[in-house]
């Protein structure tokens, strides 16, 4: 049973994130067109492309190098969401001291990245941004780690919390970020950044969960 994210698990996590994002991109672009300027989907897709080009080969990958590659890929992207994701991935990479990360390392890195994003963007829960999904996910992951949950269970709880947080943005009027400019018009529209955070945690929960099942079968 996998209780560590090593290089190949981290690579699989990003592959799964890529696939989920690709199948949702048109919908996310539409959300951004309704509440922002419509460039969210293209920006994140190009960040994922840059990440792909920077990822280390499977034989050399560690959890740290995979998240570092993602950080550089997102940091070289225009707009505001790309660089914020880039800073988040960077803190996750920093949190993994060894080649593979345990649930506590990931939880700490994700919490550190959350606070970095909040420092840079100034958003809080309820402002209709990516924070609405990220903060509950981070809290759930940290709680799971403290309870001694398995990595798979902790990521699943984080994914559920992120999805619930993303769904909650439908009822919010933006106080930060691009959707501020349209005010009430954005009511009823999910924040695409928050949905993308949910996709990321769902990809992680799936990857680690599948890995566990796979190991059991073998």
């Amino acid at each position, binding site marked *: 049973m996998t209780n560590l994210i090593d290089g190949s698990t981290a690579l699989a996590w990003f592959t799964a994130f890529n696939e989920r994002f690709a199948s949702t991109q048109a919908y996310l672009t539409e959300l951004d067109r309704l509440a922002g300027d419509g460039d969210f989907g293209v920006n994140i897709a190009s960040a994922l492309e840059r990440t792909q080009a920077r990822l280390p080969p499977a034989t050399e990958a560690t959890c740290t190098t995979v998240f570092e590659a993602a950080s*550089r890929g997102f*940091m*070289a*992207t*225009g*707009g*505001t969401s*790309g*660089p*914020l994701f*880039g*800073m988040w991935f960077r803190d996750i990479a920093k949190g993994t001291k060894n080649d593979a990360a345990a649930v506590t390392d990931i939880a700490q890195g994700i919490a550190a990245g959350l606070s970095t994003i909040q420092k*840079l*963007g100034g958003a809080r829960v309820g402002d209709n941004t990516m924070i609405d999904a990220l903060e509950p996910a981070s809290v759930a992951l940290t709680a799971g780690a403290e309870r001694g949950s398995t990595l798979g269970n902790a990521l699943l709880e984080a994914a559920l919390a992120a999805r619930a947080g993303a769904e909650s943005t439908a009822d919010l009027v933006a106080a930060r970020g691009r959707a*501020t400019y349209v005010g009430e018009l954005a009511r009823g529209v999910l924040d695409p950044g928050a949905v993308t955070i949910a996709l990321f945690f769902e990809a992680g929960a799936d990857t680690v969960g599948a890995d566990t099942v796979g190991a059991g079968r073998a």
Partner: protein
Amino acid sequence: MPTAVRRHIINNPHRVIDEALDGFALTHPELVTFNNEHNLISRKTLTPGKAGLVSGGGSGHEPLHAGFVGSGMLDVAVCGAVFASPTADQVHAGTKLANTGAGVVQIVKNYTGDVLNFQIAASLADDDGVPVEQVLVDDDLASDNGNDGPGRRGTAAVVTVEKVCGALAERGAGVSTIATRGRDVVARSRSLAIALDAGAHPGESAAAFELEPHEVEYGVGIHGERGTGRIAFAPADDLVEQLVTPLVSSLQVKRGQSVIAIVNGLGGAYPLELSIAARNVHNLLNGRGISIARSLVGTYVSSLNMHGLSVTLTVADDELISLWDDAVRTPALTW
């Protein structure tokens, strides 16, 4: 009268910045070098041990910022796409390049994307062991909404800030002294602008907005966006008075004080128009007992080919004027 279709002398809308920067560097080989991986224009020769000065932002504001790279002003300009912030990665590369051992001062115009990407770049540079100070430029009076929202935009006062900070760096000042003086220049500066016609993005056939012949857009920024309102078209002296009067009252400039003034074209105003505007800036200020200690009249911070102008006033003192007078040698400013 048919609406004029805007045309541009370009090859490919996606290659505008790369090709323009390449041409710019070929034009000034004795002053600057072009790094085309990160779209950086840097001094031909950096001075070891001098505090580095970096600015940048979206393109479309030429000659800002690349035109102010050279001795006495910037070390590196980081060039984004038209009206879009450079990425954190680009700014990080520019900041590292500008550091020759004494750290770096970043001069940032106040826009959400620029602020975010420069902040990220500053914290990445900090991890590399490069001390970074920032000066946030927010001089545009029209976008002053109290404390709510993103705050005043950064416009033509950035030229004054770059000149003064550049002179201090050349005199051997450290990053924190330079940044403190830069922030002081911002606090003493305000700008206001009008436009008769919006600019059009390279490759786009329509202008960002259309005005009737009797209308003037008042309180425009430098991104082709609408202003805060419309005023009636009138002779230059009337229009200029509607810029100067609010600036003087906002800065509370008193009789006997002096200012540094920039009468700045937004890309489509021609030199005769700017000189006529400058004439009335002088007359209005002299009439209030305020002297113009130094001034610039020309196109320094443009908004593509917008037909309009801005006036920037900076309340001066002896030290500021002395720093302004220090030698400068850049593609767009030399004395």
